[in-house]
């Protein structure tokens, strides 16, 4: 096998940009194995989360990232741990790629003390170093991400923020309030519209007068990248990071697809056909297509990927077992973390009118 290979990726559509990301991308064997493993881990983790939901071990909301893996894996591998990310409620994949273990994600989903937010956040509220969630209010994370980029510019630390939102959020007013200020102040922010085709059950055509999301920043330069191709996303992100540090904001539309419904309560079939989902799986799946490319270029062997598949399955299964066996957060924990450094005598009222509990 070779140590690196060169791949052609589709040309990005550009808006107010003279030049876009390169269409020829080189990838080392080591990186290829890493991206493959990361995407497979997220896919497997989400499949497990879906099953845990069906067996009623996960409650409430649970929005799966299956189908969109190339977006977070491609982006993460073009930024550094010092760069920041904030996303919407479809946050499991991002939490993992930003450094939370599979166990940390699954334990949070099952509501355990060992979860990445100690069972206080749940599916939509996971955090890690330089990962600010996870936000359950459609569009609200967009100004927050601009604010994180504001801090990076204020501190002049050379870092950027990736601020993600979906095609559904793309019609929220505050998104455009944030765009305007980010452009005025030249904030080092990559805004990313992860366009998976549907905001809940409403297709992009039924929700947006213009579905060219990469142009929706108007005066903000933008590009549309094939979000099913991890190498294209990685190259677009590399280009974008460089661009925003020099010029201010850039908008990336990441054209992707979600296999599951909007959430677990949505079978995802009333507003689209099973054939449509099948067709994407067969022709554009981010993992299968990447695997195909790696085989075609002899960068990685089938056996090596099979080995990864086995390792991933083992890791996720073990994490799942561990998370199920973990203890839930003790009741006294629930009164903590309401305030930073609370007064020594600060007590919280409980549901019992005569009981107050100390809070740390």
């Amino acid at each position: 096998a070779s140590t690196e290979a060169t791949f052609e990726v589709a040309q990005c559509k550009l808006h107010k940009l003279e030049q876009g990301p390169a269409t020829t991308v080189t990838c080392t064997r080591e990186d290829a194995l890493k991206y493959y493993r990361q995407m497979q881990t997220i896919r497997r983790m989400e499949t497990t989360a879906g099953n845990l939901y069906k067996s009623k071990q996960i409650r409430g909301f649970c929005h799966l990232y299956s189908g969109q893996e190339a977006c977070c894996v491609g982006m993460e591998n073009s930024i550094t741990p010092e760069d920041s990310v904030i996303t919407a409620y479809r946050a499991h994949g991002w939490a993992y790629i930003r450094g939370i273990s599979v166990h940390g994600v699954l334990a949070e989903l099952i509501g355990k003390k060992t979860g990445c937010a100690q069972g206080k956040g749940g599916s939509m509220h996971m955090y890690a170093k330089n990962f600010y969630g996870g936000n359950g209010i459609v569009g609200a994370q967009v100004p927050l991400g601009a604010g994180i980029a504001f801090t990076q510019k204020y501190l002049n630390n050379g870092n950027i923020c990736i601020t993600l939102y979906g095609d559904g959020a793309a019609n929220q007013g505050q998104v455009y309030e944030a765009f305007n200020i980010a452009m005025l102040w030249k904030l080092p922010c990559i805004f990313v519209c992860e366009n998976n085709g549907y905001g809940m059950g409403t297709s992009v055509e039924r929700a947006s007068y213009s579905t060219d999301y990469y142009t929706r920043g108007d005066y903000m330069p933008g590009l549309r990248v094939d979000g099913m191709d991890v190498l294209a996303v990685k190259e677009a992100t590399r280009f974008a990071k460089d661009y925003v540090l020099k010029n201010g904001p850039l908008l990336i539309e990441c054209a992707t697809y979600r296999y599951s419904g909007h959430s677990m309560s949505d079978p995802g079939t009333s507003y689209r056909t099973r054939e449509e989902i099948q067709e994407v799986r067969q022709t554009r799946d981010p993992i299968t297509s990447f695997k195909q490319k790696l085989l075609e270029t002899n960068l990685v062997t089938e056996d090596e990927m099979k080995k990864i598949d086995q390792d991933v399955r083992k890791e996720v299964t073990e994490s799942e077992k561990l998370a199920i066996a973990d203890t839930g957060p003790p009741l006294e924990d629930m009164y903590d973390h309401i305030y930073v450094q609370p007064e020594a005598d600060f007590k919280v009222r409980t549901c019992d009118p005569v009981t107050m509990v100390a809070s740390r």
Partner: protein
Amino acid sequence: SQLTVRDALNAAIDEEIKRDDKVFLLGEEVALYDGAYKVSRGLHKTYGDKRVIDTPITEMGFAGIAVGAAMAGLKPICEFMTFNFSMQAIDQVINSAAKTFYMSAGQVPVPIVFRGPNGAAAGVGAQHSQCFASWYSTCPGLKVLSPFSSEDCKGLLKAAIRDPNPVVFLENEIMYGTSFEMSDEAMSEDFVIPIGKAKIERQGNHITLVSHSRYVGHCLEAANELAGQGVECEVINLRSIRPMDEETIVKSVMKTNHLVTVEGGWPQCGIGSEICARVIESKFFNYLDAPVLRVTGADLPTPYAKQLEDNSFPQTHNIVGAVKKSLNIS
């Protein structure tokens, strides 16, 4: 020395921007225009574009950006030109600022101050004349301050800026030009008032008046008037709405056995309702010799015409009347 509320607020912001390079002020017209109410007068000139920042008219956007900046480690002072406009951004205050520390199990603190004029103004109609103390104080994770005097404004705003939590700081729209005596201590750069402690503005044995913001002044006027009739009122300036200094209120009620609350906000689920509930729920409820009375704004959107507006908010005679009713005197 004498200092206006406006200058006290200005001094607090000035001193804290100087003290901590992570503190900055942003909002509509705060820089070149010197603030819509001139609270930030001169600060842009002193500190420049980096620390005193004009935003477009886009409350949800700039409030969200300020919260994001706080999540990432800065200490923004986010000015709403008035709190009436904060409703455009209340999602960012409640869902992003107040809850993130908890949702992240302590990983992401949000040290931010939302400040600006609150409460009834004069002749500006229903959309620009209302009190938001009750709206914000219901939410755990937030601290809510409502200062009365220049001393309160300076000491509490400095405390709010230094606090590692999100703080809603409610200034009174028609008190910016009011002057108060300031002690040497209060003039000092080290002067900070602890959050969560009420101030007894006047001692008295016959009845307790609990109020916040501008209506503390009305209570003091009523107390003066009643003193001439032999009634000694204890006037408590809450200063902090959340956390609320229940201890000071209850102790006073144990002494006076009578309680009247006074505020400019609406009666239902108001600050008076909360005080009432706390006293009645406490084991000291039997110290009350008469029902608690709430003097509040009238239960209606603020009308424009002066005589209607004047009757929409508590006046001194309303307080005097409530005290007399509570004490059963004429």
